[in-house]
């Protein structure tokens, strides 16, 4: 394949699509599938056929449309009309949606109200209005899609669809017109930081691998998303497999690697299936393999499937797992850039980081950096869950306040309850209480509050949630997931969990709380890897903001 062949493929797809006035995209993500999206897709297909609309209406499967709590979802795109999303669709509603596409039917009008009340939608109403969510709805309006821009528009399983929307064009330009060093510099200038949670500048990491001498180098995508409450990476891998592959190709060229590995969590069979399909399709078109686009650059990509170990999200443990060993971390330095997979210089980035690369190069570093704050550029995907009216997957500009995420996008707390805290970063993160709701969401601000950006899990807790209980939940997780290599983590997490148990059972004394605090700080300072170093965060942050809840449990027990 040559770069101009991409344009040929794109024109072919557009020639077919151009004739159809409307595109109805049925969400095919795990969440919507489990709410019955397959039946909806079948109903859409049948209705289009029955009503003789096949020439006008394209029915397809899309990636996650975001509002997972209200699925199944169907997105409607029509020439010259604003896009809209139908929610709570079933087979019967699907047939009525198609009926409105008949040339004789009145126009599909967005409801007059910009924000229909989602808390009590009258879905039984014969009118489709109750199912329509316009793009102006706050859930969509405050989002800013860079990584997920094509979600809802393209079919995740069609390479041609991705190419028709500009896919692989950024890679073609990089590999034919830029030097590896220039590619690294472009990433550096964009200000992109690692989306796995720690926020290390991506361009600096790339440059370190490029500069380190070595015959063989590797690129690894970390898709071992283990935080309970997080599914951003799963969505990116399932819905935009080619965007991840394109990011890895650009990275491979920029750092001088010939082989890449996608490490995917074993619990994500759909992601594995779609990535495998995408790799095969890209290989057939010559986008993977030897001498891509007729250049000297060759790149091979393989999938490695994890088998359920949270610690494998840590980069040195992940590399051990790729090598077929127990996923046990080791001391750094040497960093993977110096000595990684099989002792070779290795670049490891999170899959969301890789998914940022193609849009970054397509629009340029300056455009990428125009979104976000001074030190945190671009957007971040969050999995919004917990006690909220609207839960789902969102992509927001860095620097947005937590209040906007919770109350505008999330629609506030159900049942008239009060907001208590937002938990970010899962078992490695912390809680942010109501008084800090106006904090901008960026790496530094969240760290200053004792929480972290994390990989993107964001769980909202209401007034009925017990914070010590949440802390205990995470500590049980960490104690279970500790690999056992270093003592502070192996023993410390178990001891902390025991103390939290004692507190919850109201058997603790004030001295136990002091001990919990001291132990937390010790484990944080002395553990070998990120798992142990961050395991005390949920405890320390709830002690910081909700100490009175711990004290109350102790004094109630002693009374």
């Amino acid at each position: 394949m040559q770069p101009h062949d991409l344009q040929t493929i794109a024109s072919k797809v557009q020639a077919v699509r151009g004739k159809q006035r409307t595109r109805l995209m049925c969400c095919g993500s795990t969440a919507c599938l489990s709410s019955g999206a397959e039946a909806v897709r079948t109903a859409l297909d049948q209705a289009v056929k029955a009503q003789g609309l096949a020439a006008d209406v394209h029915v397809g499967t899309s990636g996650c449309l975001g509002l997972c709590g209200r699925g199944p979802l169907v997105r409607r795109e029509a020439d010259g009309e604003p896009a809209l999303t139908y929610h709570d669709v079933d087979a019967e509603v699907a047939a009525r949606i198609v009926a409105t596409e008949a040339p004789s039917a009145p126009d599909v009008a967005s409801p007059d109200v910009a924000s229909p009340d989602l808390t009590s939608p009258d879905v039984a109403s014969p009118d489709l209005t109750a199912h329509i969510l316009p793009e102006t709805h706050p859930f969509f309006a405050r989002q800013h899609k860079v990584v997920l821009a094509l979600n809802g528009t393209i079919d995740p399983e069609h390479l041609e669809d991705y190419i028709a929307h500009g896919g692989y064009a950024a890679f073609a330009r990089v590999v034919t017109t830029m030097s590896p060093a220039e590619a690294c510099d472009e990433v550096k200038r964009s200000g992109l930081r690692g989306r796995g949670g720690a926020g290390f500048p991506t361009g600096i990491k790339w440059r370190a691998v490029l500069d380190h001498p070595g015959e063989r180098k590797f690129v690894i995508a970390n898709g071992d998303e283990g935080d309970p409450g997080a599914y951003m990476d799963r969505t990116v891998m399932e819905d935009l497999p080619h965007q991840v592959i394109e990011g890895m190709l650009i990275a491979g060229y920029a750092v001088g690697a010939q082989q890449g590995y996608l490490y995917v969590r074993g619990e994500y069979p759909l992601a594995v299936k779609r990535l495998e399909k995408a790799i095969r399709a890209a290989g057939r078109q010559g986008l993977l393999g030897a001498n891509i686009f007729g250049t000297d650059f060759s790149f091979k990509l393989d999938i490695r499937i994890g088998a359920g170990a949270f610690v494998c999200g840590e980069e040195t443990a992940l590399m051990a797992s790729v090598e077929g060993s127990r996923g046990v971390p080791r001391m750094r330095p040497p960093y993977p850039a110096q000595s990684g997979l099989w002792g070779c210089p290795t670049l490891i980035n999170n899959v969301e980081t890789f998914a940022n690369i193609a849009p970054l190069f397509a629009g340029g570093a300056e455009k990428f950096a125009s979104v976000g704050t001074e030190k945190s550029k671009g957007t971040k995907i969050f999995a919004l869950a917990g006690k909220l009216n609207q839960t789902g997957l969102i992509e927001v500009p860095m620097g947005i306040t937590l209040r906007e995420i919770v109350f505008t996008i999330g629609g506030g707390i159900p049942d008239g309850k009060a907001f208590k805290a937002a938990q970010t970063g899962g078992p490695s993160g912390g809680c942010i209480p109501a008084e800090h709701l106006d904090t901008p969401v960026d790496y530094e601000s969240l760290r200053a509050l004792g929480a972290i950006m994390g990989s993107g899990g964001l769980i909202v807790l209401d007034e009925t949630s017990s914070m010590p209980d949440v802390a205990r939940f995470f500590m049980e997780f960490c104690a279970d997931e500790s690999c056992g290599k270093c003592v502070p983590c192996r023993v410390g997490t178990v001891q902390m969990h025991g103390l939290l148990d004692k507190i919850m059972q109201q058997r603790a004394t004030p001295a136990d709380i002091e001990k919990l605090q001291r132990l937390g700080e010790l484990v944080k300072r002395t553990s070998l890897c990120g798992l142990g170093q961050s395991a005390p965060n949920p405890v320390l942050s709830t002690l910081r903001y909700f100490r009175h809840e711990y004290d109350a449990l102790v004094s109630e027990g002693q009374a």
Partner: protein
Amino acid sequence: MTSTLSGDPRLKSVDRAIKKNGARGDALLEVLNTAQESFGYLSQDLIRYVARELHVPLARVYGVATFYHLFTFKPKGDHTCIVCLGTACYVKGAGDIVAALEAEYEVKSGGTTADGRLSVTTARCLGSCGLAPMLVLDGAVLARNDANSTLERVAVVLDGTPAQEAD
């Protein structure tokens, strides 16, 4: 060593995975994944077989297999109910669902009932937090459950027998 495996047709896919990776030791995880997929669990014979074919010490195979949560060493029950214990599910009451199942069927989470009919396991996070609390019953993802709805649904898959008579 007597092996109950020789000639088992399910070994074919295991052999394929070994061959595909050139029988290299670093394919261990992938081969174990395939082995469990074919057999449902890793029996002692199967672990020995993998060690022999990959030319890896048995201790290493055992060490790797026991390190990762997804590998099991006992056969599963006829039906499986996986309860998600991710954060979103937990704050919405997934803990009560597990407790109800354990009490109703006299089984510990991670285990199988004495009659081998039902396995109850928990998952760390199945990544469908918008549907919390969620569970996977015989492969079907079910959204927004509570203890009662779960017991009803499990009773239905166990041949429609009322829950209290199912053991």
